[in-house]
């Protein structure tokens, strides 16, 4: 396997192909359309299913149907298109079908613009659709992770019968970087619960309706138990230069990679900063964050939104240390210099700044 220069959107689409995605349904929207284009070419080539649906609403319901039939299936879109899928995602959670959704986030709200943003955090991580449900949410920060986490997303979706979301942004979708694709995997077997035609076996039912309240309550208990299992087993994060850090930066995706450049710059000045990068946004790396809060003087949350993940950070930190926020909206990527300034401010306020120059002795 060799390293190739790959665009993020093409990389995750091809990774899905290699992971055994048998059916892709989507509707074009910038900045993720290259993925749909790639699938339009690749899926028929392999005798698999590609449908450009009439809308995102149709696409997610086609995914629901394919998932109920037990094949690996996915869709991808960007923020406004993902909003249209919320009903379908709730139904899929209520039916416990596995599927993968890639959200290449852009500036919002509304039509907003097509530039990179992280404004869908709360929508994707906290719900978006109705009812008590969760989706596993994975946040890549480079093109290699666009590949690796897409493959993982299919595996987790199948293992837990859950929708798994790759939460990327326009920068990760549009940029090119060196990355390695995995080999083409054989297609997965249809699971026993799937709707494969009931000849010579009992009928299966895939549905999200439970009219009897007690029965629906039991089903919710079952979902909550499954979610607790996922919280216990599927937390993923990266710690970067945290060993001696006095200021902990918490950021995911593109904001995290830009923060790394800022951390290198302030470290050259003697400010001991490091990064905790949640890779799974749900389940959230709560234990790692709590442990970090015990040993730093302050935390700085950096996001490409007006402050969304910071709510989770404050919830977990429970006032142990000051939690500051730096964000850019409008589809504007924060520059390393801006983040470096924010780190310096937080460090100064917490008394964790660069050591003052030693006063020079003056000869009288």
């Amino acid at each position, binding site marked *: 396997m060799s390293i190739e220069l790959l665009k993020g959107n093409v990389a995750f689409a091809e990774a899905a192909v290699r992971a055994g995605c048998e059916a892709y349904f989507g509707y074009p929207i910038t900045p993720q359309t290259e993925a749909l284009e790639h699938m339009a070419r690749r899926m028929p080539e392999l005798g698999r299913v590609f449908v450009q649906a009439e809308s995102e609403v149709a696409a997610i319901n086609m995914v629901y149907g394919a998932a109920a039939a037990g094949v690996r299936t996915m869709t991808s879109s960007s923020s406004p298109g993902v909003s249209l899928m919320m009903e379908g995602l709730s139904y899929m959670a209520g039916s416990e079908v596995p599927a993968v959704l890639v959200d290449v986030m852009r500036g919002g709200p509304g039509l907003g613009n097509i530039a990179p943003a992280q404004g869908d955090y709360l929508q994707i991580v906290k719900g978006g659709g109705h009812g008590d449900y969760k989706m596993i949410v994975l946040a890549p920060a480079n093109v290699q992770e666009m590949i690796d986490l897409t493959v993982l997303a299919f595996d987790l979706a199948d293992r837990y019968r859950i929708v798994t979301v790759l939460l990327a942004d326009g920068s990760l979708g549009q940029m090119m*970087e060196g990355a390695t694709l995995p080999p083409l995997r054989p297609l997965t077997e249809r699971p026993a619960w799937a709707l494969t035609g009931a000849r010579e076996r009992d009928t299966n039912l895939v549905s999200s309706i439970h009219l009897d309240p007690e029965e629906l309550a039991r089903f919710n208990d079952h979902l909550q138990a499954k979610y607790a299992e996922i919280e216990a087993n599927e937390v993923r994060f990266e710690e970067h230069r945290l060993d001696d850090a006095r200021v902990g930066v918490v950021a995911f995706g593109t904001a995290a990679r830009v*923060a790394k450049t800022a951390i290198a710059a302030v470290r050259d000045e003697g400010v001991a900063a490091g990064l905790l990068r949640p890779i799974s946004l749900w389940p959230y790396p709560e234990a790692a964050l709590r442990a970090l809060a015990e040993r730093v003087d302050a935390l700085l949350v950096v996001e490409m939104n007006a402050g969304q993940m910071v709510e989770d950070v404050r919830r977990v930190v429970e006032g142990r240390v000051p939690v500051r926020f730096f964000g850019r909206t409008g589809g504007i990527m924060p*520059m390393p210099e801006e983040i470096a300034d924010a780190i310096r401010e937080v460090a100064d306020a917490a008394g964790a700044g660069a050591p003052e120059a030693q006063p020079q002795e003056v000869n009288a």
Partner: protein
Amino acid sequence: MTTDLVIAGFGGQGVLFAGQLLAHAALEADLHTTWYPSYGPEMRGGTANCTVVISDQPIGSPVVARPEAAIVLNLPSLDRYEPLVRPGGLLIVNASLIDRDVRRTDLDVIAIPADDVAAELGSPRLTNMVLLGALLARRPVFTLDHVAKTLEAVLPERHRHLLPANRAALERGAELADAVEVAAATG
């Protein structure tokens, strides 16, 4: 060691491809690289730019507020990037389309009539390669040989016959840059 640069011009001038070629060349040389394009709703025309970062270390930010070098192929791009290039940095100007002088005095400026040079070499589509040759003369991250070999590897079969012309354009750009004295401010 980290090199970062912006290449900017009209859509269709080969701006994005020139950046991709550098990124490919970086990968071929076992370096880390990111290529980040401007992207808009337009299918053709409009302005285009890309940022390329090349480093022997993993790359954090794929965007830079103040690039170390810029190649500008049209006037709007000069207006936009002249103020942003880092002091002492490199500014390569397509003089065929830009008839104003660079105002900053703290940059290494190379103005080449790249469209005219490309036409002399037989194809107006070689403009980007002429300017890339100039860049490599000043920032020898890779040899022209390495870039020409990379081009051979990434060019689709149907365009392989253009390799000699592209090679000539890279060399001509480098020659023209070598003929420009490095500005005192940067020396």
